[in-house]
């Protein structure tokens, strides 16, 4: 007898969760390399007595929209955007390799290329890339090859090549926060992608999509609430009428 309310409740909970996802997308509208997330609903079939089934709502999974965000030029030679699919590899503090799309790099006091969180960016050999202190201008080619020039015109080549890697199942990358992803999958070089120096990939959040999504969630939530209210009235009415007939 309680199942209408419970089905509606499962919908309310799922809607709250999708509102959280939308809120996170909107909050990260200016986060470099952020990928918007969506939520996937499913039915959870419960077999009640006498062969009746009830379908509850369950939020099964969140997925990332892997489309490339708009590229904005910044004029900073160490800002690198990936054009196409793929990730930069970085070495996390615990020694493991993590992946990121946020290419706002810097140099550390040793001249290594690091991320905003201070993690060294790895080259295609799995080693950090070090820029010598005599370098006055740094150049990153579209294949990720890092070269530098000194003031007297000497070119410093073979400093390393920023690795761009891809995976079999991109959705299985686990978001760790701070723009990082981790996975146990083996990476392969992303050969059809290129990098662009002096630019950053903006977040791919579309304001219109998020706003309409938000309106939809709120209205559905209201409707569900109304239904719960009506269900409550129906039950009270039924109890009322039934108790009167028996009296």
């Amino acid at each position: 007898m309680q199942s209408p309310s419970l089905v509606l409740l499962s919908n309310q909970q799922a809607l709250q969760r999708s509102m959280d996802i939308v809120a996170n997308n909107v909050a990260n509208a200016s986060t470099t390399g952020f990928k918007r997330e969506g939520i996937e609903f499913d039915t959870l079939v419960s077999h009640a007595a006498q062969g009746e089934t009830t379908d509850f709502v369950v939020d099964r999974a969140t997925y990332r929209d892997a489309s490339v965000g708009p590229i904005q030029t910044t004029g900073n030679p160490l800002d690198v955007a990936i054009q196409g699919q793929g990730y930069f590899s970085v070495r996390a503090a615990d020694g493991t390799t993590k992946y990121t799309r946020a290419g706002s790099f810097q140099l550390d006091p040793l001249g290594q290329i690091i991320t905003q969180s201070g993690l060294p960016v790895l080259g295609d050999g799995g080693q950090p890339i070090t820029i010598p202190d005599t370098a006055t201008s740094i150049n990153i080619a579209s294949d990720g090859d890092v070269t530098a020039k000194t003031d007297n015109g000497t070119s410093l080549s073979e400093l390393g090549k920023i690795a761009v890697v891809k995976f079999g199942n991109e959705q299985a990358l686990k978001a760790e926060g701070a723009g990082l992803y981790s996975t146990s999958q083996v990476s392969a070089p992303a050969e059809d992608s290129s990098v662009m120096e002096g630019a950053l990939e903006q977040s791919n959040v579309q304001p219109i999509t998020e706003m309409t999504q938000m309106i939809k969630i709120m209205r559905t939530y209201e409707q569900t609430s109304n239904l719960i209210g009506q269900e409550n009235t129906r039950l009270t009415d039924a109890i009322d009428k039934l108790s009167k007939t028996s009296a």
Partner: protein
Amino acid sequence: MRALSIGATGMEAQQLNVEVISNNIANLSTTGFKRSRAEFQDLLYQNMRSVGSASSDTGTILPSGLQVGLGVKPAATYRINEQGNLTVTNNPLDIAVNGRGYFQVQLPDGTTAYTRAGSLQLNASGQFVTPDGFTVLPNITVPTTATSITVNASGQVLATVSGQTAQTTLGQLQLANFINPTGLDAIGQNLLKETQASGSPITGSPQSTGFGSLVQGSLETSNVDIVSEITNLITAQRAYEMNSKVINTADQMLSTANQIKS
């Protein structure tokens, strides 16, 4: 309801973004100013269903998980050390650095700060000082008999003394350089200080390997590009509005929930 606090992190982030942009715009005419950029990162994720975990005892795994992000955080505000334009002032003591390098300035507490702003002056004893009166290192004293001062591209300071035909060499200006100039700590008054992130200063004469040259009678303008700042400002304001809409919606959802049993 996490959406309320997630929206709040978004509003805080955009507020910082506007603050950074307004500081850039405010310093549009500041000599040697380098524009900053606010960089954001996503916050931690809450895993409802962890990706890659087993979905059955036959070894099937979840192809994607259920992760809810908890908002945004500012990661850094970093300076973009692009060369600013040089503007000619014809003041012999305005010296611009064309290329890499910072002037070294001795602070009243004895420590050294670094600056790109070369609007120098002379103090009562004839030393090169910044507009705040801090001496420029290495110390160069201009004699009172000097009628004109020349600073050449490689940093030599020469003076014409009345009654003499040949110029006298007064000294050599030195510049300091850092491996990671973005890591310098801005302390205001156009001054920057060395940090662990910047690395130790490497000093050298202008025009030597790794250093820029000096241009007398010119100043380096700020590298703020007003058009891009204004467009960034518009984006930040709209993003701020969207985040407030999120908080509003979450609030309405909660209020709807409160009114279920009326």
